[in-house]
């Protein structure tokens, strides 16, 4: 009887400890990691792919929108761009496009801008509501005549992680979503350095780490295999974050 009780009481503890062993097995890891595809598949199959993220009123905004990740890229190149108020900065749009672009901040400002007050959800659990302004990514991709062979859009940034530029990627469903914008304005002002100046991605139906800051390049690609280690983003490649961050 004592044996049984010990098993019952200790079972929970053993299960928790066992989980760390289980996930070392490649097959178990594969099954567990397939959860991401199941969640994404369910969301995409059962819900409206064009549904808009909730938008808020001005009086519902966070009084202070904290910064996260890189607060300042701090490289000599970025410092030079910043010193010149991003006059020399260009957003290069390439890859599988018919018309590669090299856009100045002024040119990006000439695209019709969308203004949206949305909630930013960090993977860690906190949320902040802010107002963002900038053109839809879809408009830029159309201006670059994105190829029919493209399936993903890859963002390359000015900030370095482990000596390499931060990178992220989206599929075309989220890239062409109307709330997916390249924001140059935040809370009624130009985007500041802490939040990703001069230009950052907003992809409102996904978690914060997808919202690449300090944008330098956008490439349309057919596959993520040759991007970084092949999983489509810095955190995805290096610490197993989900590529689909809609959950």
């Amino acid at each position, binding site marked *: 009887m004592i044996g049984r009780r010990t098993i019952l009481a200790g079972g929970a503890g053993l299960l928790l400890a066992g*989980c760390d062993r289980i996930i070392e097995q490649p097959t178990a890891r594969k099954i567990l990691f397939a*959860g991401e595809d199941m969640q994404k598949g369910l969301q995409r199959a059962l*819900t409206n792919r064009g549904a808009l993220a909730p938008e808020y009123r001005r009086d519902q905004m966070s009084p202070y929108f904290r910064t996260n990740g890189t607060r300042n890229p701090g490289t000599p190149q970025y410092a030079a761009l910043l010193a010149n108020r991003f006059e020399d900065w260009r957003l290069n749009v390439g890859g599988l496009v018919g018309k590669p672009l090299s856009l100045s901040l002024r040119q990006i400002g000439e695209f019709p801008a969308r203004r949206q007050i949305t909630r930013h959800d960090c993977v860690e659990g906190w949320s902040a509501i802010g107002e963002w302004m900038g053109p839809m990514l879809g408009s830029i991709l159309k201006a670059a005549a994105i190829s029919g062979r493209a399936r993903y859009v890859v963002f390359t940034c000015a900030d370095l992680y482990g000596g390499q530029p931060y990178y992220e990627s989206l599929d075309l469903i989220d890239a062409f979503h109307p709330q997916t914008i390249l924001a140059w304005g935040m809370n009624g002002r130009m985007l500041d350095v802490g939040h990703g100046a001069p230009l950052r991605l907003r992809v409102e*139906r996904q978690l914060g780490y997808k919202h690449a800051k300090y944008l330098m390049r956008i490439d349309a690609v057919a596959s993520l295999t040759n991007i970084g280690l092949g999983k489509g983003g810095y955190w995805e490649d290096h610490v197993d974050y989900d590529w689909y961050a809609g*959950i």
Partner: protein
Amino acid sequence: MEAPTPQEPQRPRSPSVIRRHGVVTRVWHWVNAVAVLILLGSGLGISNAHSRLYWGRYGANFDPAWASLPHFPGWITIPARYNLAISRRWHLFFALVLGFGLLAYMVGGLLTRHFQRDLRIRGRELRPTALWADFRRHLAFRFHDEHDPRRYNLFQKLSYVLVLFVALPLAILTGIALSPGMNAAWPWVLEILGGRQSARSIHFITASALALFTIVHLVLVILAGAGNEMRSMITGRWRIPE
């Protein structure tokens, strides 16, 4: 006809064994037990990433928090060493197991009439005298009804109904509310919960209630006879206590 064996007359006095739990209940119980433990462990791992809880739509380090949770130690988190990505992998996989498992059990429980037969609570059972009587029976460690031993006692029914129809669905709903993709798809979930940070707080409170239920449940299983109770949830066969 065989000649009666000498032991036969004693049989009625020996404890009798009945079929207690149906196969739907047994399968779901164990699937759900694994899912709940993994969700609690991985959930505590996720909590360690940002341990402050807020009410409302937003909430971050500079906003007022109603709770600042402790850092949960490695022996209770999945994985043991802090890793938000892996905690999330466990949590989001077993969230599907919990959600679809509960859905299947709900359908099965209604079709086999298990819910209607075994979990129905009648008004007269909730009278103070009835509640007091059941409370006193619990204090005396008498958990079953001698006249109808197959029946759940009142506190059992109340706690099972609360867990099945309130706590587990609320944990799932508040979990769905934490997904920015689902916020776009089903904004009404956020609205009824009062915003994402409220949903996150309710998610934690509900998970705490489920953890408390699990502990009380395990203690009562031990007090009622761990071997007999475990067997009844594995093979379905339960020996009526004397």
